[in-house]
């Protein structure tokens, strides 16, 4: 009998952070323009010391100005989607729940697109305009998860197959509306369509959005983490959790809002990247067990690692062309989904 201690939690997080660091360095090195590991290390140190003007080569600029921001974006997006997936799995008591499978990502994408379409018609200051798209995405995510939750109920109970069907149908319905709006309102833009439907990290982030994304992630993931031990008990059912002292409605509300924020933020900057929230929590649960005090931070690191790897592959496998990152995550995630579904039915 050896329960989780703070020391063990931090040790494991440090190990995951080290893996993430190695992945980031490899991702910085790989790409259309070759960079030496030595030059890379020297440039990274110079940037950290605030001496960007002394970068060794022109290639250094490519690495620091183009690859690094994209990798950082991938880290936050991956961590957000993965923590959101872990939370949805506990909240809905369904191991197959994930923002993409449940249609929540599509709802967030639709919300973001509606915000983009509406924004020029509204008189809002440029400062608030930066917040408008993520806000639309959050509302889209929150509305979708509420709709899927109610559609997925049968005789007052959540039924996992009905829930998944409701999510998949919602995703397809919302994608159709996205395509319709993209074609009629924004003009046929294949890159834009691929961005919202498959997810893509190649669009550079506006300076203001970086803050929104960073602060939003820390606040929402932190809020979910405060309920970590409650989520452990919720896995056994709402009644049992209540009898063990969990304030079930409060935990539901916190996790519902925070997971919608995470999905909304991730989707508003990278589109609907699929399966990260499904694949990563399962792998982490397999390695570290299902205690959410360990699982949530592990999922955050794991999501970051997975998306950085997927995006590096997306940049390099068909170079000089590029794939949307969602193509890579779907290629890995969809077979895993089928495997988990089969195992559950068996």
């Amino acid at each position, binding site marked *: *009998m050896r*329960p989780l201690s703070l020391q063990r939690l931090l040790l494991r997080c440090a190990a995951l952070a080290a893996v993430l660091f190695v992945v980031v360095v490899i991702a910085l090195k790989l790409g259309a323009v070759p960079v030496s590991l030595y030059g890379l290390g020297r440039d990274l140190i110079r940037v950290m010391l605030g001496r960007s003007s002394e970068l060794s080569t022109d290639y250094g600029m490519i690495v620091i100005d183009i690859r690094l921001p994209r990798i950082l974006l991938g880290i936050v997006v991956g961590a957000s989607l993965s923590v959101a997936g872990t939370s949805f799995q506990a909240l809905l008591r369904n191991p197959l729940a994930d923002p993409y499978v449940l249609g929540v990502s599509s709802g967030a994408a639709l919300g973001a697109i509606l915000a983009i379409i509406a924004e020029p018609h509204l008189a809002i200051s440029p400062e608030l305009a930066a917040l408008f798209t993520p806000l639309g995405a959050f509302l889209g995510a929150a509305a979708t998860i509420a709709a899927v939750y109610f559609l997925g109920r049968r005789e007052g109970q959540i039924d996992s197959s009905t829930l998944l069907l409701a999510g998949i149908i919602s995703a397809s319905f919302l994608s159709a509306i996205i395509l319709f709006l993209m074609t009629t309102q924004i003009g046929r833009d294949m890159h834009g369509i691929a961005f919202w439907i498959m997810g893509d990290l190649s669009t550079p982030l506006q300076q203001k959005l970086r803050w929104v994304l960073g602060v939003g992630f820390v606040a929402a993931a932190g809020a979910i983490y405060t309920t*970590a031990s409650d989520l452990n*008990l919720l*896995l056994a059912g709402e009644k049992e959790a*209540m*009898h063990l*002292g*969990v304030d079930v409605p409060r935990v539901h509300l916190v996790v519902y809002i925070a997971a919608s924020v995470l999905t909304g933020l991730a989707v508003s900057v990278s589109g609907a990247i699929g399966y990260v929230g499904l694949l990563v929590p399962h792998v982490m*649960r397999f390695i570290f067990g299902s205690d959410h005090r360990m699982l949530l931070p592990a999922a955050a690191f794991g999501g970051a690692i997975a998306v950085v790897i997927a995006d590096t592959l997306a940049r390099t496998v068909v170079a000089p062309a590029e794939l949307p990152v969602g193509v890579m995550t779907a290629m890995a995630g969809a077979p895993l989904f089928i495997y988990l579904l089969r195992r559950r039915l068996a």
Partner: protein
Amino acid sequence: MSAQTAARTSADTARASGEARLSVEQVSYAYSANPSQAPLFTLEATSFQARAGEILAILGPNASGKSTLLKLISGALQPLSGRVLLNGFVTHSLSPKTRAQRIAVVQQESRLLFPSRAWEFVLQGRHPYARPMRFETEDDVIIARNALAQVGAEHLGDRWMDQLSGGEKQRVILARALAQQPLLLLLDEPTLHLDIGAQVDLLDALRRLAAENRYTVVVVTHELNLAAEYADQVVLLQRGKSLRIGPPANVYQRELLEHVFQTSLSVELGSSGRPRVNVLSG
């Protein structure tokens, strides 16, 4: 068991001594699909009391309101009228945390979404005592280990929950309830999926625990003979009405039981001085 006794505040003990610990006062309830229609099920006003160390069985056929009464006692449901007091506090008004420190509920089925080890499961019983973001303390581990020992399940600690037999699982679930260090232990059909040997084991353990730890135990069951053998008091329910409340010898009368359970049976006095029921075929 010093930790067990230390958890009780002196005020609690003072209040509990000499008087009833659990007091169900004119409690009624009604289920209805929508408020404008007549209720689908009603539980008529019911009153009884139980002291520390006492085992009370709620007995009755299916759909007699046993589980509803248990939910009302646990505070999960708010009574339509009347109130349930535990040491003078209304159970429904307690915060979820406080309630879980005083009342432990063992449900019929405990389904897990992801695998967990028995000791992790028992440690969940310490949740009502933990502050958020806190990790289990050394004391929590000792209490959980003691709880496993009290139900004779020390050896099961490292096993996975989904690999335990029905009887073993039920003991681990009971150990989690003990880890809550409650005043009141509520069990909903705890013997449902157990063979007769495991049923006797479980009820022997309950009687011993009630005596040693001064728990008040309320068991919902439809096993007439187990209730007769182990309960100090029986509440006999039929279609939402409590027909008789008292020691088994007073409640177990042939005509009454035949009427409630709709079958012919005989009642005799067993060797233990408690009534024994035989169902007559034909």
